[in-house]
């Protein structure tokens, strides 16, 4: 097996780390929470970072009319399936394909990840803006529009008394490394091909 194919094999397997480690984490800090509230987003689940965190995030959020974080969302079925399918494709490519296919897999993964992030953004936006009209507390922005409570997609942001952090976790690193490996496999494969022909 060629070196580039071995790298592609690793690339295809790495995203499986998403089944072991959380993809993303949203952390909420406030003076009353010396231990911050935090939620891990897995490819198939939301989970507490400390016991009862999600319950307590919901309790906080109900004051401003945000919906409860759902037990399950359709993405929890689609995303794992997507990862399994792309891994199978990646494995087929690693065993059968050449470097051009590596590029194809790279582009496929970047596109799917981008779509996933966009989907996450849409969910976050809805979660932060689709507020109960009977909300206990209503806040407006300086321009008079209704204040949203969307956590950042990436980075940190002040939301009322909370400071929200949103950052990738180990699962995302596995996915990113897998994608990077496929690009590397492509480049190495291409270089070898060129050096062989010239």
């Amino acid at each position, binding site marked *: 097996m060629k070196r580039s194919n071995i790298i592609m094999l690793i690339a295809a397997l790495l995203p499986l780390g998403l089944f072991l480690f959380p993809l993303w984490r949203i952390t909420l800090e406030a003076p009353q929470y010396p231990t911050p509230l935090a939620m891990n987003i897995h490819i198939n689940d939301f989970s507490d970072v400390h016991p*009862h965190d999600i319950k307590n995030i919901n*309790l906080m959020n109900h*004051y401003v009319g945000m919906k409860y974080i759902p037990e399950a969302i359709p993405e929890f079925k689609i995303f794992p399936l997507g990862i399994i399918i792309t891994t199978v494709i990646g494995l087929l490519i690693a065993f059968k394909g050449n470097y051009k296919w590596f590029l194809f897999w790279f582009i496929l993964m970047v596109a799917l990840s981008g779509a996933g992030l966009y989907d996450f953004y849409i969910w976050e936006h809805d979660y932060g803006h689709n507020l109960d009209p009977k909300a*206990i*507390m209503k806040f407006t922005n300086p321009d008079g529009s209704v204040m949203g409570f969307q956590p950042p997609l990436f980075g940190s942001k002040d939301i009322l008394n909370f400071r929200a952090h949103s950052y990738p976790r180990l699962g995302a690193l596995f996915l990113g490394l897998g994608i990077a490996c496929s690009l590397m496999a492509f480049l190495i494969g291409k270089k070898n091909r060129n050096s062989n022909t010239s």
Partner: protein
Amino acid sequence: MKNILKSTIAILSVLIAFTSCNNTSNSKSGALAGNVAEKVYVAPGEHDEFYAFISGGFSGQLSVYGLPSGRLFKVIPVFSQDAEKAYGYNEETKPMLNTSHGFVPWDDSHHPDISQTNGEIDGRWIFINGNNTPRIAKIDLSTFETTEIIEIPNSAGNHSSSFVTENSEYVVAGTRFSVPIPQRDMPIKDYKGNFKGSLSFISIDPEHGHMDIKFQLIMPGFDYDLSHPGRGKSHGWFFFTTYNTEEASTLMEVNASQNDKDFIAAVNWKKIEEYVNNGGGTKMPAKYAHNVYDEATHSATSTMKKEVLTVNPLDVPGAVYFLPTPKSPHGCDVDPTGEYIVGNGKLSANLTVHSFTKMLDAIENKKFAGDAYGIPILSFEDVLAGSVEQPGLGPLHTEFDGKGNAYTTFFISSEVVKWKLGTWEVVDRQPCYYSVGHLMIPGGNSQKPFGKYVVAMNKITKDRYLPTGPEVTQSAQLYDISGEKMELLLDFPTIGEPHYAAGCPADLIKPRSKKLFKLEDNKHPYAALSEADTKVVRDGKTVHVYMTTIRSHFAPDNIEGIKVGDKVYFHITNLEQDYDVPHGVSMIGANTSELLIMPGQTETFLWEPKQVGVWPFYCTDFCSALHQEMQGYVRVSPANSNTPLKWSLGEDIE
């Protein structure tokens, strides 16, 4: 010339002003005072190094302080009702205060002692005695709640208690007042020879800490004042000071102070344990309550026990000896090595220290000076290790720093005196403000004291704080004992009247301290574990309300169909699962206290409506931003009305 005079005067007055300024500031805050302040300063948000559990005396409770700051963290209700926490008021904890005399809402809590493993403080439980209606309580140091109380039969003035042996085999309770055993109608003047003193050995279940009276040693009718276990080489023995060996029964201050020497009773409990395990002892009818709080049901149950195993010391030869000790000894303190037994003869000029090794030798060589009711009295000279000569007036209690030093309180001369074990020389003395009783070094009753601080608990306060009328708080004082000389660091007020305290490094307890009760572990029979489980159930004239709280509402918050004359039990489950989010509740006109319900807990109060109307209830603990809105109504209809029983949350009752 006039001008010169004027300016001279001006300059002089300025100079005088400066000088006087300097004088005042120098006298108030020297470099030394700053240094002392630093030693007790615990910065905001920082934690103290030690927990101190200081008994509440006539308050019946146990207070929790931090050292070195002297900050009060909690008052744990033990023997007295506490309206703040609903202890002894709610249906769940009322059984905790049950006794053979019925419900007793108060006691006099005295000597806290922390459980031990291998002679060292382990921080699992703390035990404390109720002096008046003899009881021993166990407090769980993961919840800081009283979880068990056992009444002691055949006892009165449960004072030489509640000290723990070095592997927490037993917590020991001795009677101060001897009484007829069994109790009977007899003339008081026939005390002598007829009254008896009981020393109770209460076994501690190693896993759950459950208490059970293993045996009671029925001793001559002296007053058994204080006690401490042997440790290390003397593990297996227990030592009790006695006074009133005169066996007087009136004008005790005179008549119980006549003998030149009273005794320290040395009890070989291992020997008696073996005797009892082999079927020894006499079962005697008795009546005493055993109250156990179950953390899963958040409820206590009270069981009345009918029998106790008694042991006559004469039936176990070699198990009990008397060590003559001058002048009505009070504190009975054993040093960390287990060799020295200090008898704090409160009316004696000298402090008497016995040697465990010499005691064993005297027993072996039968160096007896007679007997008392058949119990051998060892010869004073043959058990004496030494005396601290003229150390002060009125010695009461001694603690040890684990570095070969002992610290004794002197009530009359109002001071703590540091002296050396073995050489018996006085090293230092520091005044107390005023008339010190007990003192405490963290880990004091163990093989491993933490000799950094000593807390002196004073009986008289007078002018130490801002005056508060005729009744003033009691006061404790903290001394640094890390150096050769003691240094007074801090005064701090205490709850009730402290009799002894127990302390340990915070790290022993802090990591195990519970933050909340898990809802899924709640096995309370009337718990509603979600709002879907809430309901109101009528059973004749009794109504059970299964109610929940979560920020910021009750479920249900409207109830109709209650009638005058009903007995309404509000069972409130706090659905919160976040640290430090309790909810409180009370109902207008309820003849009981509020409830203060911790996250995941269920508590119950009884309301007996007497008047027709619509009556509100509300959350009594500022729980959240919408706390003021956390309220509800109960409609009370006439006794003969047909208002249907209905309840709701968020919608009207139709």
